[in-house]
């Protein structure tokens, strides 16, 4: 190839495999590049649109959630649990901090310091996205009705097919009674 390039370049004859190869490579590269350039907008249009992404934060007044109660609210179209935990639930979660778990985490790492009674997590089961129900399952927490994943009072996965604890989400306490999600 390199030899033929040197020979034919000096001859300027009608058969010039070196130049022909170059044009082939150039044309193929340009075509592949063009196909990728056209394909990308056609694929990326399926990703969340700007107005969907704009639904980012939400303020919620937690004073209406009584001790031992739980609300399910919608944040960015995703269900979120805000659970006002009883001291008994917190104690049970802390006691299990070092029990064998699929996705080990301490109870303290799943709440904000000084607000341990508030557990705020995405309400979608990490298996296939169903909403678990509280008060069922043998760990005093949630049981997913779809495929039987069991979460404890810190919403950590303890049994069943789900691979992860219920996901945490970014939030801050604006005051003791007001929380900002997102």
């Amino acid at each position, binding site marked *: 190839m390199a030899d033929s390039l040197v020979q034919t370049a000096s001859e300027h004859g009608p058969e010039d495999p070196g130049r022909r190869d170059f044009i082939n490579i150039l044309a193929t590269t340009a075509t592949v590049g063009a196909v990728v350039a056209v394909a990308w907008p056609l694929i990326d249009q*399926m990703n969340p649109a700007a107005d969907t992404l704009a639904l980012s934060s939400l303020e919620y007044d937690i004073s209406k959630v009584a001790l031992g109660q739980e609300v399910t609210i919608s944040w960015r179209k995703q269900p979120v649990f805000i659970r006002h935990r009883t001291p008994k639930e917190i104690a049970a979660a802390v006691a299990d901090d070092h029990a064998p778990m699929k996705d080990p985490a301490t109870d303290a790492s799943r709440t904000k310091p000084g607000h341990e009674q508030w557990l705020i997590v995405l309400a979608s089961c990490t298996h296939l996205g169903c909403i678990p129900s509280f008060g069922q399952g043998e760990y005093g927490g949630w049981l997913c009705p779809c495929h*039987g994943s069991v979460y404890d009072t810190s919403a950590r996965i303890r049994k069943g*097919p789900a691979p992860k604890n219920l996901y945490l989400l970014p939030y801050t306490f604006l005051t003791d009674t007001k929380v900002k999600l997102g």
Partner: protein
Amino acid sequence: MSGHSSYEPKTAIERWLDTRLPIIRFSADLLDFPTPRNLNYWYTFGGILTFCLAVQIVTGIVLAMHYDPSGAGAFNSVEQHIMRDVNYGWLIRGIHANGASMFFLAVYLHILRGIYYGSFKAPREVLWLLGCVIYVLMMATAFMGYVLPWGQMSFWGAKVITNLLGAFPIVGNAITALLWGGFSVDSPTLNRFFSLHYLLPFVIAAVVGLHIWALHVPGNNNPTGVNVKSKADTVAFHPYYTVKDGFAVSVFMILFAVFVFFLPDALSKVDNAVPANPLVTPAHIVPEWYLLPFYAILRAIPDKLMGVLALGGALAMLFILPWLDTSKVRSMRYRPTARIYFFIWIVAALALGWCGSQEPDGQVIQGLHGPTFIDYDINSVTWLSRIAALYYFAYFLLITPLLAFFETPRPVPDSLYTPVLSHPAATPAGAVAAPETKG
């Protein structure tokens, strides 16, 4: 299609067209296609499935004229507008919704026929693979169609199935975001599912075209699995099999009509009469009956990624079947041992279907408590699914390849009409045996 053509253009116009676009020749050859003379009623499901696809496309195009693919309007446009207000909307939607079930009933019998008579074996592997592709496309289409009424089962079914893809490491979440067009299943998801639900049936129709093309190269298999040896072994597709298929379609339409007119909601779930609510999961989520065995396999495995891979693997078994079964004998008529294992496989698939419809920790034998093993009671639906799923995979990966080596098949007839001649009913007293005159 396979080089044979007995078409003779008769008029000047036909001759003119034949040298420009031989479409009449093409149609004539299709009708005249030499078809084995011994095909039984299990071979009519190809025609029945063509009928089903046509029914779904026609009713679907009509429904799309009245449907509103937005999260806010979808439920009402189906349950209020189409079902109550549009002229005959209830009928057209009843045919479309039950038509999906009829389509799957027919395709399952068609697939079982193919396995039993060894229709996937050489030289029909590509024909079989195209059929598997059609089946996967059908499942995707049916799933997206089920989402469109935007009831509770639609919504949560969509959520569970799209979350399946999130099981894949690294790319999983990017894929689900791409499918959802948001942070969760929502109006953008519904909109794109509607678009794809309209598109895929035409893709299916195109693959059906290839499927029929691939059928017409080697020609039909037949219940004996013996190759066609001469023209005497065949009859023309028309009128012999157009009439036979036509009769089968008519009988099939009776069953279809029973569902449409007398049991229109028998196969749907009451939860789907409740509008989609992203904050409440129905107590008991189940897919449509035709997906239940796969759902049971998914649930049987206590790990998300492995469960999803097993579900995909269950489908992949069909694709690789031609290379798993190396037995030279095609038809299970002459493979008594293979036949037994095949029937057990059907029972296992039905058991998986039953398991998929039950709660995971429900009891198989009511009132009996067994020891707990790998998270579940031995007498639970989950354990029955595990055993049935194990057999499902063992049938393909272990039993089928081993039988090809160890089974002694019964003698295979020399030609596909020998068994007909030797059958006592074929030669009544005093009759002259002349099978070639019997149609």
